[in-house]
């Protein structure tokens, strides 16, 4: 079995007229957790948006292969069905759509795409309940409109809840630690760690060391000005914390 899950080669991407990714190479194997660190404006969020297929981002060169398939030819929903999940840095508020209705549509769309029967109401509610407990969400959470009036911590817990519901193969956490207090950070990190298996991988995009104290990466990359300038083991995190990104070129 080929244990390479994701292979990014020579990836260049732009938003409107501005080139942001200038040739990114990255290979992730099954079971690995990769941290992508870097200063503001390096292209970290662009990388996550391109992986998830955000239409406003234009790939101008390079390739992304996920489980042997050409990811760039797939619509965002097809990428989700294939097992990619993006935890948004700024989760979107959707007034008028309840979490329950949203998740039921998402879970059953994926099942349909994979040729499985939709979950019946009882099985779905059982799954909801289990995954809500997993991120310490109260039962009334299920009835709320998506992210409307949520605190920063609730929004991020909602992302991890959705991740648990959809059971992805590759999770991309885009600055999931931003705006979190220590308790919320711990809940989120415990959630992510509990989902780890030897088959599944994650990309943890972050600015700071603190999330990586809880989710320990196998590989650390530094992204600067649209390129990966250094790849090393977890010891690189401490060096960045001590000396800053300027020390790495």
């Amino acid at each position, binding site marked *: 079995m080929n244990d390479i899950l994701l292979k990014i080669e020579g990836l260049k991407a732009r938003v409107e007229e501005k080139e942001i990714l200038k040739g990114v190479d990255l290979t992730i194997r099954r079971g690995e957790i990769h941290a992508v660190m870097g200063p503001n404006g390096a292209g970290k969020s662009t990388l996550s948006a391109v992986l998830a297929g955000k*239409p406003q981002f234009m790939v101008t060169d390079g390739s992304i292969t996920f489980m042997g398939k050409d990811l760039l030819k797939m619509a965002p*929903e097809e990428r*989700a069905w294939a097992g990619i999940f993006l935890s*948004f840095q700024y989760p979107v508020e*959707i007034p*008028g759509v309840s979490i329950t209705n949203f998740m039921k549509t998402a879970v059953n*769309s994926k099942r349909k795409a994979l040729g499985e029967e939709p979950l019946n109401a009882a099985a779905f509610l059982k799954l909801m309940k289990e995954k809500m407990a997993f991120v310490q969400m109260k039962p009334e959470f299920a009835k709320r409109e998506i992210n409307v009036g949520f605190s920063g911590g609730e929004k991020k817990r909602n992302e991890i809840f959705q991740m648990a519901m*959809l059971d992805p193969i590759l999770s991309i956490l885009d600055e999931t630690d931003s705006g979190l207090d220590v308790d919320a950070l711990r809940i989120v990190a415990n959630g992510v760690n509990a989902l780890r298996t030897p088959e599944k991988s994650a990309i943890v995009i972050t600015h700071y060391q603190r999330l990586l104290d809880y989710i320990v990466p196998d590989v650390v990359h530094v992204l600067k000005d649209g390129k990966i300038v250094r790849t090393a083991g977890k010891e690189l995190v401490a060096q960045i914390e001590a000396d800053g990104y300027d020390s790495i070129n």
Partner: protein
Amino acid sequence: MSDNRITVAGREVFRKLVIVPESEDWRMHISVEEGASADVTLLILPGISCTADFTIEMNGPKADCRLAGIYLCPENENVHINVEMLHKVPQCTSRQIFKGIVSGKAKADFYGKIVVSPGAQQTEAYQENHSLLLSDTAKSNTRPQLEIYADDVKCSHGATIGKLNEEEQFYMRSRGIPQDEARALQMISFLSPVIDGIPDPEERERIYAEAEAAIRSGFLK
């Protein structure tokens, strides 16, 4: 022309759901007397072109009115909605909410006037009209008007014309919800403030079902 004249009196509650049955013009004139209330919801489904005229007279103190409407115009419909909400005496309340989705080459106009007569103090009158415009060739006009001749009142109107939010769509698609399904969810949630105001739960469910079916067959082709 279908013409309806109704007087609601003596603490009576008048509730009416109007689903415009065919392309003919439609008029309703309601006089709401002291302490009475009227609650009317209008539904104009795809394929219907019409002018719908409402004249509501708030004729007795503490009368109350909720007037709501949905218009769904995916192809080449031509819909006009005219409302005159006339507050003639003190202490009456009225709330209007109209929402429409317009696409293809359809045209929808909303003209809504609130008149507060001299002496109709402590009136509360609100009006909202919001449209989603889904094609470059569809047209939507909104003309709210307030004429207020009393000084102790609370009145407001709000009008917007917009498109489906792309950030919401990407968020839903990234969770595996297909684009059309995401659009359907957005349109239903856009209409939900109108439907949620329908007092009878069975009628509410029925209108949700009608609206969803109309959205799927009309706007997601």
